[in-house]
Every structure is written in C-alpha cells, then in structure tokens.
C-alpha cells in the first residue's frame, strides 16, 4: 500500500516537472503556426505604438503580403531578442529611445544625428527604414497657468524661478541623462524628483508636481492645456517614429512602409492617439481610416 502511494506520488511529481519543463521550453513569442512567408509585425504594449504597427500591417496586406500580428509584446527588453532572432520582423520604434537602448552613452540629439547614430548602433541583421517626421519623445511640460504666471516658454526659463520645482515622471527618469542631473548640467535648473508613475499628468494638474515628463504625442497635452517647454539646448534626444526591420526583409517592404512614414506627421500621430484615448476606437479601425485618408490603401 505504502509503495503504491509513493509511486503514485513520484508519478505526480514527474508529471508536474515535465509539465513545467514543457512550459519553460516553449517560447511565448513563437507564433507557432506562422507560415514561412508571413511577415510578423510586432508592437509594444503601448496603444500609440500598436496603432502604428496596425498601419504597417494593413499597408502590407493591401500590397498582397501575408502578415501576422504579434502585438503588445511589452517593452524593449522583452521584444528585442525576438527581433534579433528574426521571429518578429517589423516593429514601430522611436529613434532616440532605440539609440539609447543600444548605446546608452549616445550624445546625438538632433533628428538627423540620432538617425545616423542609430544606423551605426544597430546590431547586424536589423536595420531601419526612413524615419517619419512624427515624434513621440520625452518632453517637460507645465500647466498653462504656471506657464503664464511665470512667463515660461523654454526649459531655460525655469532657472530664474524662485518657486521650488518638483519634477514628476516615471521612477527611471531620475537616472536618465535628461533627468534631474541633466536639467542641472545643461540648464542650471535645480529640481527635486518625485516618481509619479502612471499618474504623471494627473499629478501635474493636481499640483503635486509642477514640471512633468510627458510623451510629446500624448493627447492630454492638448486636452489638459499643458505647455510643452522648448528644449533649445537639446537635452532630449529626438525620437522620431521609425520602422525597425529585419535586414533581409528591408528592400522588399521599403516601397510599402516608407510612404507610410512620409505621410505620418507629428499632428497626425496625436490625432491617431486621440481617436484611441478619447473615442475608444480599436487600432484596426483607426489604422484603416488613416490609410484610406492618406490614399495608401
């Protein structure tokens, strides 16, 4: 009796181990059913990025390519290995942030310099197509009333203020080159830093911080009447939307994707985001309308 029970236990344990092994062995990024000629388009877990990925996907489909969507993969750490392995072949990216990922000490800040430096920094097997004029980059914002009261138009104006400044943003901003240390080095602005996570804009509006790091294509800059401070010294890296693509595929799809990048403007990107956040439309619908409006599908 005892031995039966023990062998049953061993069998259960072995099954569990095998099941676990099977779990860790299978790759969650592996589409599995992908036919070899399908182009796998990926996106970050960020609504704006997913809309652009959907635009790429539909533009390719309109030209007769077979496309497989692998959206909301997460952040760069999560999806970059899949791109380098060729499991994902096309991905909407942002020049500045992508450059910083591959070269943390990058010094380029203007759109052209960043694009050139990025082409140097990319690993073999990956390349970028033409960059778009649309940007989605970090920017420092203040409320309209705070800007008028203190006559602010540029980050440099912050240096003359007597008011104690509190900068809000995601926790990692504290360590970024454009964070509190960068503000001090480049503009001579002293700020204390508060991690405001996902509620940065709400914190700025509520007044718990008076300077906030918001992505430049965030619709709330318009809806909440925020003022984006100019960055004459180039503290922030330009971060234009750019298609990151598997090098083997680049020539084949360049004629389809480059016109999309050319048609996507900064204002256009904000408008796409508004349709998602304010009107709650799906990225597929937003992308289809946008392609039709721009005569690309």
């Amino acid at each position, binding site marked *: 009796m005892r031995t039966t029970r023990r062998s049953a236990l061993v069998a259960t344990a072995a099954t569990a181990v095998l099941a676990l092994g099977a779990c860790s062995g299978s790759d969650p990024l592996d589409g599995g059913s992908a036919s070899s000629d399908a182009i796998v388009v990926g996106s970050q877990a960020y609504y704006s990025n997913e809309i652009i990925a959907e635009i790429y996907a539909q533009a390719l489909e309109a030209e007769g390519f077979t496309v497989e969507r692998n959206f909301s993969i997460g*952040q760069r*750490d999560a999806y970059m290995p899949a791109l380098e392995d060729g499991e994902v072949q096309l991905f909407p990216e942002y020049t500045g942030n992508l450059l910083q990922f591959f070269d943390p000490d990058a010094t380029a800040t203007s759109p052209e310099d960043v694009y050139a430096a990025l082409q140097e920094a990319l690993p073999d097997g990956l390349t970028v197509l033409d960059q778009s004029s649309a940007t989605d980059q970090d920017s420092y914002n203040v409320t309209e009333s705070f800007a008028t009261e203190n006559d602010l138009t540029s980050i440099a104006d912050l240096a003359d203020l007597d008011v104690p400044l509190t900068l809000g943003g*995601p*926790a*990692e901003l*504290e*360590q*970024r080159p454009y964070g*509190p240390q960068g503000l001090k080095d480049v503009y001579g602005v002293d700020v*204390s*830093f*508060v*991690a*405001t*996570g*996902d*509620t940065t804009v*709400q*914190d700025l509006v*509520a*007044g*718990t911080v008076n300077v906030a790091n918001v992505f430049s294509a965030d619709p709330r800059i318009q809806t909440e009447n925020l003022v984006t401070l100019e960055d004459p010294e180039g503290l922030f890296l330009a971060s234009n939307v750019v298609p990151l693509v598997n090098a083997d595929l680049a020539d084949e799809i360049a004629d389809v994707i480059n016109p999309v990048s050319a048609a996507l403007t900064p204002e256009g990107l904000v408008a796409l985001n508004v349709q998602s956040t304010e009107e709650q439309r799906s990225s597929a619908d937003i992308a289809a309308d946008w392609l039709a409006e721009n005569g690309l599908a």
Partner: protein
Amino acid sequence: MNVFADAVAWIFSPDRLTGALPLPEAIWTHLAFTFVAVLIAAAVAIPAGWAIGHTGRGREIAVALSGAARAVPSFGLVLLLVLVLGVTHKVAASVTAFVLLAIPPILAGAYAGVEAVERRVVDGARSVGMTGRQVLFKAEVPLGLPLLIGGLRSATLQVVATVTLAGYVGNWGLGFYIVQGIQIRDFSQILGAALLIVVLAVVLDALFAILQRVVVPRGVAAGRAPDDAPARRRRRLPDPTTA
C-alpha cells in the same frame, strides 16, 4: 555569486544616501507603511474576530468575505484607489489597499483563536460565575492569543512584501528601486532592494515567532503555536517497540 556581490555593493554604496529616495528613508517608509497598515487592519479585524469567535455568529460571512478579499489583486487595487481617491491622496490609497490585504489573516487568527478554546474551559469559566465579557477576556482571548499572533504574523509578512507596490505610485519604500531598476536594467539595484525586503521580512517574522512563544499562557499546552504541537504529541505516544 557575482550578482549577489554586486547587489550587496549596491546596498552599501555611499550613493544610496543621496538622490530622490535615500536608502534609509526607503527602509523607513517601507516599515512605516507596513506598521500603519497592520495596525489599522488589527484595529478593525481583532474586535470583529473576537465577536465572531465568542458568539459563533457571522462566521460564514467572515470566512466568505475574507476569502474573497484574498483574491483581490493588490497591484490593481493600489492603482485603482489612487485614481478613485485622486493623486493628492496616494498615501491613503496605498495604505487602504494594504489594510484590505492584512484584514483576512488577522480576522481568521482572532476568531479561530477564540473558537479553538476547549468547550470544557468555557463551561468551567461560566460555571464559576463569569459573565460573558469575563469569559471572553479572561479565558477565550488569552488562550486564543497564540493563534491571533499567528494571524498578525502572516498579515505582516504579506504586507511587508506587498508594500513594494507603493514604489509604483511615489517615492516610497524599497519597491521604488525595483520599479526604477527594471526600467534602467540595473539588476544589482533590483536584487539589492529585493534582498533588503527579504531581510525586513525575516526580521519581522523572527520577532513575531518570539512574541508567539511569549504570549502562550503558562501551563497551557493546547494553545501552543501550531507548528510545535505535533512534535509534542508524537513524543507522548507510547513506543510501539517496547509495548
């Protein structure tokens, strides 16, 4: 081992005393969140648990409610409460989430402790003329203390680990470094902060283990902490080889 050496080096680096959240302040706020949440939860759950254990009424509701509360994801709750209460009340929002997490184990410890007191003891107390209140506070509560402290112990452990989430909404606790470390891919920072949380948890658990021993009323074996009870019973069993 190199990873751990880097993490320890991160903990003891002089840079930890500067920045948006110096390390001592992170440890202090981490503990403060933990204690405040457990204290509030205890103030709510202990009287309720004693009442349930003493009267035997409302047990099903308490079990169902505290069981359901365990299923609430704390991360979602913290963010939801921050949005509901507004960003100016982030501390209140986070503490509320941790209180809700701490209530079920304390409630269970309080009523289980009172309920587990032997019927004969309660009858005896009543038969010497104790009032209901005296039975509760002179017999049931002291005898139930080890289980109550056990409830507080597991509540504190859960909360000290979960306070990490406060780092998502502000410059509080050791979770701040983990949230930041993941984004900047600084693994020694993530591990260093995680190790400190482990240390806090182990130290708090050890304190409660001592407390749990101390509060056992003299001469009561039945009320011993559940983890040393089986050992005693086994020792008392007659040895089959000599029988």
